[in-house]
C-alpha cells in the first residue's frame, strides 16, 4: 500500500466517520448516496480499470440489485434474503454479459453492454406487473440489523463538549452503508492484491500475451464482469432501502455513462479512484444544488467541459496526478544526469583534442 493511499485513506476515514453526525438529514442522505455510488463504481473500476473491459451497462446491475430487493421486500421477504438473491442474480447476469466480451472488445463491447442496459431498462419500465413501470415501487422498508431497525428516528440528540447536536434521522442507515462500503472495499483490496489482481491487469494490458503465459483470459474476462456486477447489485440493494422509492430513471443508459465517467475521472485502475470519481460526479453537484441552486445549472456543463479537458491533459484520471509528478521529476533528474554526462564527455573530448594537437 503506497503512502499516498494510506494518507488518502486516513483523511477519508476521518471524514466519513466524524462528519455526518454534524450534518442535516439531507447531508447524511447525500453521504449515503455517495458511498453507494462508491461501491457501484468500485465494481465498475474492476471491470473497466483493472480488467480493461469497456462496459456501459453497469447501471443495469445497479437496477437489478435495487429491484430485486424492492420486489422481495414488498412481498414481505427480509432484506437479508433479498441481498444474497440480488448478489447471485447479478453474478449470473454479469457472467452472461461477459460472453460478448470474449468475441468483441473496445467500442464494440461498449455498444453490446449498452444494448444490455437498454433491454434491462425497458423491462423495468414496461413490465408494470413486476416493477410498477414508470410509477416505480414505493414504501421499500429499511432492514434491521441485530434487532436494531435502521429506519432511524427523528429527534435524537448527541452531547459533545456540553453542546447539544440534533442527529439526522438517516444516520443509522448511513453507518450501515458505511460498514458495507468498508467490507466491500476490503474484499476488493484483498482480491486485487492476490494473484487475481495481476491476472486482471495482464488481461487489460495484453490479452494475447496473457494467454500465451497460461492466463485463462476467458475465465478472467467473465469474472471481471460478474464480480463488478455483484458490486453494482449490492449498491442497488442499499440504494433501494435508502431512497424508499425506486423507478427506472437512475438505472438508464445515462446512469451507466455517468458511472463510467466517475471511474475515468477518479482514475481507472487506481484503487481509490471511484472514491474521488463519485465525489466529483455525485456528491459535489448535489451539494451545490443544495447550497447554491443558481450554480447547480452550471455544474453539469462545467463538469462536462472539465472531462473533455481532462481526457486531453490527464487521461488517467485525478488519482494519476502524483504518478505524473513523480514521472516528471524522474525524467528531469535523468535529463540532468544526461546533460552532465554529455558535458563531461565534451570536456574529455576537448582535452584529448588538445593533447592531439
Amino acid at each position, binding site marked *: 500500500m503506497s503512502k499516498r493511499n494510506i494518507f488518502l485513506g486516513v483523511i477519508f476515514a476521518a471524514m466519513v466517520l466524524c462528519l455526518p453526525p454534524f450534518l442535516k438529514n439531507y447531508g447524511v442522505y447525500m453521504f449515503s448516496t455517495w458511498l453507494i455510488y462508491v461501491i457501484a463504481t468500485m465494481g465498475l473500476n474492476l471491470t473497466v480499470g483493472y480488467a480493461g473491459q469497456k462496459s456501459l451497462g453497469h447501471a443495469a446491475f445497479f437496477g437489478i440489485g435495487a429491484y430485486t430487493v424492492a420486489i422481495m421486500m414488498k412481498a414481505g421477504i427480509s432484506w437479508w434474503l433479498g441481498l444474497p438473491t440480488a448478489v447471485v442474480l447479478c453474478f449470473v447476469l454479469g457472467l452472461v454479459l461477459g460472453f460478448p466480451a470474449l468475441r468483441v472488445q473496445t467500442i464494440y463491447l461498449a455498444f453490446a453492454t449498452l444494448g444490455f442496459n437498454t433491454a434491462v431498462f425497458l423491462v423495468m419500465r414496461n413490465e408494470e406487473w413486476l416493477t410498477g413501470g414508470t410509477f416505480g415501487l414505493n414504501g421499500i422498508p429499511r432492514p434491521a440489523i441485530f434487532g436494531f431497525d435502521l429506519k432511524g428516528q427523528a429527534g435524537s440528540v448527541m452531547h459533545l463538549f456540553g453542546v447539544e447536536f440534533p442527529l439526522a434521522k438517516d444516520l443509522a442507515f448511513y453507518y450501515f452503508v458505511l460498514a458495507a462500503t468498508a467490507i466491500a472495499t476490503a474484499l476488493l483490496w484483498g482480491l486485487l492484491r492476490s494473484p487475481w489482481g495481476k491476472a486482471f491487469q495482464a488481461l487489460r*494490458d495484453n490479452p494475447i500475451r496473457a494467454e500465451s*503465459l497460461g*492466463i485463462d483470459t476467458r475465465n478472467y474476462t467473465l469474472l471481471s464482469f460478474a464480480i463488478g456486477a455483484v458490486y453494482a447489485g449490492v449498491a442497488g440493494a442499499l440504494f433501494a432501502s435508502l431512497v424508499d422509492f425506486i423507478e427506472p430513471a437512475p438505472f438508464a443508459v445515462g446512469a451507466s455513462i455517468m458511472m463510467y465517467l466517475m471511474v475515468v475521472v477518479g482514475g481507472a485502475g487506481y484503487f481509490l479512484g471511484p472514491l474521488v470519481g463519485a465525489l466529483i460526479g455525485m456528491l459535489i453537484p448535489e451539494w451545490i444544488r443544495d447550497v447554491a441552486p443558481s450554480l447547480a445549472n452550471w455544474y453539469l456543463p462545467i463538469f462536462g467541459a472539465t472531462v473533455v479537458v481532462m481526457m486531453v491533459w490527464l487521461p488517467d484520471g485525478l488519482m494519476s496526478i502524483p504518478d505524473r509528478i513523480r514521472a516528471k521529476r524522474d525524467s528531469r533528474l535523468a535529463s540532468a544526469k544526461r546533460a552532465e554526462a554529455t558535458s563531461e564527455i565534451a570536456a574529455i573530448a576537448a582535452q584529448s583534442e588538445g593533447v592531439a594537437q
Partner: protein
Amino acid sequence: MSAPILKVDGLKKAYGAIQAVGGVSFEVMPGEIFGVIGPNGSGKTTLFNSMLGQIQPDEGSIELNGRDVSKCGPLELSRRGVGRTFQTLQVFSKMTVRDNLIVAAQEHQGTMLSRMFAPSDSGLGDKADALIKRFRIEHVAQLKAGTLSYGQQKLVDIAMAFMSEPDLVLLDEPCAGVNPSLVGGISALLKDLNQNPHHGKKSSFVVIEHNMDFVMDLCHRIMVMVEGQVLAVGTPAEIRGNKAVLEAYLGA
C-alpha cells in the same frame, strides 16, 4: 539417445491455393537450440504459428514430449510447458517489470480458487528477482514495463518466457528491432540460459531469426526452409557449406 522434446511430422498448411507449409518434419532434442531460417515467404511464420496453436495445420502432427498437441491453443500449450517470445513488443505495459515476471508464471501453480488466497507474488518473488538479476535489469525492476526502452522491454519479454520453467521456448525473432550492440548480449544470455537454466531443468529453444550471424552463433542445429519445404538441416558449419542453401537463400 533420448526422446525428442518436440516432434513435427508431415506438417502441411495451405491458404487457398498457396501451400505455405508443404510437409515439414523435424525433431528438437532436449537442451537443443534449434534455428529456423529461410527467405521471406518460406513458411517460417506459418510453421511457428502452428507450433504455437495460433493456427490449425491442415495435416501432420506436432508432438510435445510424445503427446500430440496439434489441436491445442496457446493457453493449453503454455500449461503443457511451451514458453514463447514475440516478434513485436508484448509486455504488460502498465505493470512493473517485476510484476510482469511474476504474472508470467503465477497461473502455472494452484487453481484459480487457491490463487485467490495466495500471496501477492505467488511465492515467485525470489525467482523473479534472480531472473531480473541475470538479465541485468535490476535498476528498472520497479518501473512500469511500458516506460522502458525497446531493448529493455525485449529483455523483459524474453525473461517472461522463462519464468514458468518451460520445456520448450519458441523465440520469434528475438533480435528484431534490437540495437546491434545488444544482439551479442541477447545471444550470450540465451546461451547461458540454455547451459545453466535458472531452474534445474534444461529447456530446448526453437529460434526464428533473420540475423544470420546471430543464428549461426547461437544454434546447435539449423533448418533452412524454402517455399514451404525443408531445404536442409544441419549444424551451422554444415549449413554454411551447403551449396543449395547458399543458392536459395542468398540467391548466389
